[in-house]
């Protein structure tokens, strides 16, 4: 009996070892396969893509929770301003649009009480503030710039925007669009910007106005703003609809 038990034990352990070895090999192979797969192949899988999109949505909530509406982005001395400040858009610098400032009117829509369009002289007459802050691109690079304009929360209050709504959306003259959370819209450094480095915004930086937010990545800062709307319906945006994270806050 004892002998039989022993030989069975020996047999079992050899068999188990073989199984284990196969398992190691398989695991090693699947890890290797994961490593060898190009990003495209595995990322193109619909199930994987759905999961990643869901997690990105969950990351929006996590970032909203992490966002402290009173925490200010660091400001810098004038000597730290990056010159020349880099141009960036979904098109090349040669394709920058030329908006006619004389005919320009900023349109307002959605959950806003006073929706009369604003001309540039009317906007320029509002009290303005200046900030020297870091602009961080989703690509990784950053640059420090000097922006002047109206505190966006002041503007929203002035036009009677419903600040309990979830989103503020932007449509731009260059067919760009984006949207932000209300908490960031009301952040003290969120600015409806008319000037860059003390000069009226040149076309390449978004004439006649952009929204400057040092608490968001660069692509969340729309240029050439044509209309602003307040809504509870998720508006998405140009890059957001292509897969970039919506909140993208700093």
């Amino acid at each position, binding site marked *: 009996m004892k002998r039989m038990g022993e030989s069975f*034990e*020996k047999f079992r*352990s050899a068999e188990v070892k073989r199984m*284990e*070895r196969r*398992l*190691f090999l398989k*695991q090693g192979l699947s*890890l290797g396969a*994961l*490593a060898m*797969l*190009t*990003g*495209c192949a*595995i*990322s*193109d899988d619909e199930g994987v893509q759905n*999961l*990643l*999109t869901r*997690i*990105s949505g969950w*990351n929006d909530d996590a*970032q909203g929770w*992490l*966002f*402290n509406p009173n*925490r*200010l*982005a*660091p400001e810098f001395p004038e000597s730290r301003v990056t010159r020349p400040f880099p141009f960036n858009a979904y098109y090349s610098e040669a394709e920058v649009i030329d908006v006619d400032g004389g005919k320009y009117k900023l349109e307002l829509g959605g959950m806003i009480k006073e929706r009369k369009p604003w001309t540039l002289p009317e906007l320029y007459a509002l009290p303005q503030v200046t900030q020297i802050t*870091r602009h*961080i*691109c*989703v*690509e*990784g*690079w*950053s640059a420090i710039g000097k922006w002047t304009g109206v505190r966006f929360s002041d503007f929203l209050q002035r036009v009677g925007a419903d600040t309990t709504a979830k989103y503020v959306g932007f449509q731009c003259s260059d067919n760009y669009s984006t949207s932000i959370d209300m908490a960031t819209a009301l952040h003290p450094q969120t600015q409806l910007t008319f000037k860059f480095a003390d000069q009226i915004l040149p076309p390449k930086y978004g004439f006649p106005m952009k929204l400057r937010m*040092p*608490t968001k990545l660069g692509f969340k800062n729309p240029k050439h703003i044509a209309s602003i709307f307040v809504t509870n319906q998720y508006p998405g945006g140009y*890059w957001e609809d*292509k*897969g*970039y*994270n919506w909140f993208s*806050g*700093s």
Partner: protein
Amino acid sequence: MEAQVKVHPLVVRIAHWLNVVAVLIMITSGWQIYNASPLFDFSFPDEITLGGWLAGALQWHFAAMWLFAVNGIVYVVYGILSGHFRRKLLPLSPLAVLRDVGAAFRGRLAHDDLTVYNAAQRAAYLALILLLMLLVLTGLVLWKPVQFYWYGQFMGDYEGARFLHFFAMAGVFLIVVVHVAMVALVPRTFPSMITGRVKA
């Protein structure tokens, strides 16, 4: 039946393999993210990156970071509270590390007793743990440079954190390459990270 001794607790084995998956995703997607705006005069070949393009790589990176961070926290808390770190990684003397690294290069580093890490292993594993922690800390500054400015300012703010994040990745990559090479040289260490046991 051969006598076996336990070398790796279950928590450590699970954390190890989850970490392999998480770090593999973090590094390969991180290379794609790096390529969007390289810090140095080179890019990573697309074939060894994950995500296909910047937005895809960012989705992978910001998904796997949760697995990486939660798994890492469980591992570190376990390692400290259970005494696992103290037993396996300490004491660590610089002299012993030099001696063992020298022995390893001459092919004379003994691996008779797999239950005890030699000084070179201790140094490498400890460095790996610290580098992975540095990746989390610098990563948080890159992800939320405003919210974490209170400590990000001590590592050169956003731009400083970019370089530190890159160098920490390079350090992890180097240690992993050496680690995998050592496992290939002493193959009986490999099954022990799955079964938890080695022959006594």
